[in-house]
């Protein structure tokens, strides 16, 4: 098995169809162009000493090219988060050397002259070598080979590198996509970041179904709306914060109808969707089918879906329990099993909160250097909390380990607490996520000051801002005389959260 096989099939079935369009520049690649360029780049990768192919750049035609060329050459593709600082990126690169790094022109100098790192300009990767020979069609079919290494945002300390083998990604595609099922006119607008599992899944699903992908490298609601109209987009996927902005943007123009009847399907996922946002969106897009997808990096993307029928049934129902399903993430995909377990690892009754466990061919649950966290029966503990109702609808109830999910970005409370603890006036601190309509969750901090100190909320905010990315700055800070702990000295975040309200 190899993800290249998916592109090979697309290339032989519809070579001249447009596969990808960069929405920002208008450049395109057909399936045959993508296939031929992937072969040429694979030959160069194979000739180098690189063990990994690292990409550090926004979405562009280079994104699918890098994924497939790596698969063809037989080394893992490693897309990095370009919003990280150079220092953070350097630490990740150290873990994947020897490697080839492809990045934008303005970033090349930051990574030049490092031992074991060959640096390429993104635009060269796409344009050069029209005359070069391609590799033979001899990519490795060993299903155990690693296709993609994805750094998770990491809840404690250094990010973990999730290993997705060819068998995980290919199983996911074969189980969820019918080959060549897309009409030539269908187009999918992809605005999720290329270093996110949803970005990888979007490439593979679209290629296998033959659906044209329009890439939106830097999301804004205005640009999203423009591209949907310009390319007569039929399918799109957004995170809840994006949908909220799209809805607001349409409402600002006074629209009661988005007037995008060609948009047949709009999927969302990656965080909790506020009920008012999805209800408004459904009325603005009356011709559009809505789906809510839930998945993780470690599960090769989607494991459960709340489909269009489920959405309509929930909205039409007068039963409160059925209406509630509008905020669920639906039911498990075929071939995927989901269980909720308590702290002792026992399966719980319906409608009881516990940790979500998942099993299936697409589930990796493996990290480089840390091994697998999948148990002997194949179950992967997601660390997400949730519950299942009687009919198998899954409800998410936050992270089992208190990670703050702000606008799709996972923030570690511990990391922010560590920074605040370095302030001379701080005696104790707890950072938690609080509900926020804009971001899903936002950061709040409770600080216990040392005696004799007087520091303002704004001072602490700028203290954090100087040391961390702005998303980590607590939007709300309270000062308490002490924090609640249990008998073993563990901070009771739940109590903090309740008291903060």
């Amino acid at each position: 098995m190899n993800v290249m096989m998916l592109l090979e099939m697309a290339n032989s079935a519809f070579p001249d169809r447009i596969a990808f369009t960069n929405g920002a520049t208008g450049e395109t690649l057909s399936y045959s162009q993508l296939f031929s360029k992937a072969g040429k780049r694979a030959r160069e990768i194979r000739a180098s000493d690189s063990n990994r192919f690292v990409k550090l750049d926004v979405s562009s035609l280079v994104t699918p090219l890098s994924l497939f060329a790596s698969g063809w050459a037989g080394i893992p593709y490693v897309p990095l988060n370009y919003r990280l600082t150079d220092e953070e990126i350097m630490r990740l690169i150290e873990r994947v050397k020897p490697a080839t790094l492809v990045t934008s022109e303005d970033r090349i100098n930051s990574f030049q002259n490092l031992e074991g790192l060959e640096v390429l300009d993104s635009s060269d990767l796409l344009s050069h070598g029209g005359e070069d020979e391609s590799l033979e069609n001899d990519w490795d079919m060993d299903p155990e080979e690693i296709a993609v290494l994805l750094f998770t945002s990491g809840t404690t300390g250094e990010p973990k590198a999730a290993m997705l083998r060819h068998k995980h990604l290919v199983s996911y595609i074969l189980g969820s996509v019918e080959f060549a099922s897309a009409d030539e006119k269908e187009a999918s607008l992809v605005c999720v970041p290329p270093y996110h599992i949803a970005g990888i899944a979007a490439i593979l699903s679209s290629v296998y179904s033959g659906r044209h992908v329009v890439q939106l490298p830097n999301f804004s609601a205005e640009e999203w709306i423009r591209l949907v109209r310009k390319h007569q987009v039929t399918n799109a996927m957004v995170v809840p914060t994006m949908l909220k902005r799209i809805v607001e943007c349409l409402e600002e123009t006074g629209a009661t109808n988005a007037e995008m009847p060609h948009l047949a399907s709009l999927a969302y996922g990656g965080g909790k969707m506020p009920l008012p946002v999805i209800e408004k969106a459904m009325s603005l897009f009356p011709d559009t089918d809505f789906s809510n997808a839930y998945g993780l990096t470690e599960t090769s993307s989607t494991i459960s879906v709340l489909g269009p029928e489920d959405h309509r049934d929930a909205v039409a129902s007068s039963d409160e329990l059925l209406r509630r399903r509008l905020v669920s993430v639906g039911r498990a995909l075929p071939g995927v099993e989901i269980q909720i377990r308590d702290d002792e690892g026992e399966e719980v009754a319906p409608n009881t909160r516990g940790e979500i466990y998942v099993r299936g061919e697409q589930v990796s649950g493996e990290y480089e250097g840390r091994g697998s966290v999948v148990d002997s029966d194949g179950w992967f503990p997601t660390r997400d909390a949730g519950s299942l109702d009687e009919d198998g609808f899954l409800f998410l109830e936050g992270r089992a380990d208190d990670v703050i999910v702000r606008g799709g970005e996972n923030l570690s409370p511990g990391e922010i607490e560590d920074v605040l603890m370095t302030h001379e006036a701080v005696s104790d601190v707890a950072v938690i996520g609080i509900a926020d309509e804009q971001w899903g969750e936002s950061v709040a901090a409770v600080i216990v000051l040392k005696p004799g100190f007087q520091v303002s909320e704004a001072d602490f905010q700028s203290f954090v801002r100087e040391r961390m990315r702005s998303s980590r700055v607590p939007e709300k800070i309270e000062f308490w005389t002490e924090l609640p702990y249990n008998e073993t000295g563990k901070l009771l975040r739940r109590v903090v959260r309740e008291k903060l309200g």
Partner: protein
Amino acid sequence: MPTLKTGARLKSAVCDGEIMVVAAPSGDVDLTCGGEPMIDASSGESAGGDIHPDHAVGIAMGKRYINEAETLEVLCVKAGDGGLAADGALLLQKDTKKLPKTD
């Protein structure tokens, strides 16, 4: 009779058909296309000979085929005129459940 390895790519000896093994039982399987044993896709041999008339339903690219017990599953990666069989029994086409598109 060889054991089949998951991920292995095989081609027909009598038509253009090619498949990839998605899932295989642990024991030996006699996998045929057009009535003749399938061969390793990377081998230099090319198609020749005739398709057996009882094994001529053809295979379509992107379709998955399974045995009765569902212990064997293969994916057609190149279309051909021969039909697939395991240990003499014709394979059946497997349907992909239609799902809402989410990525």
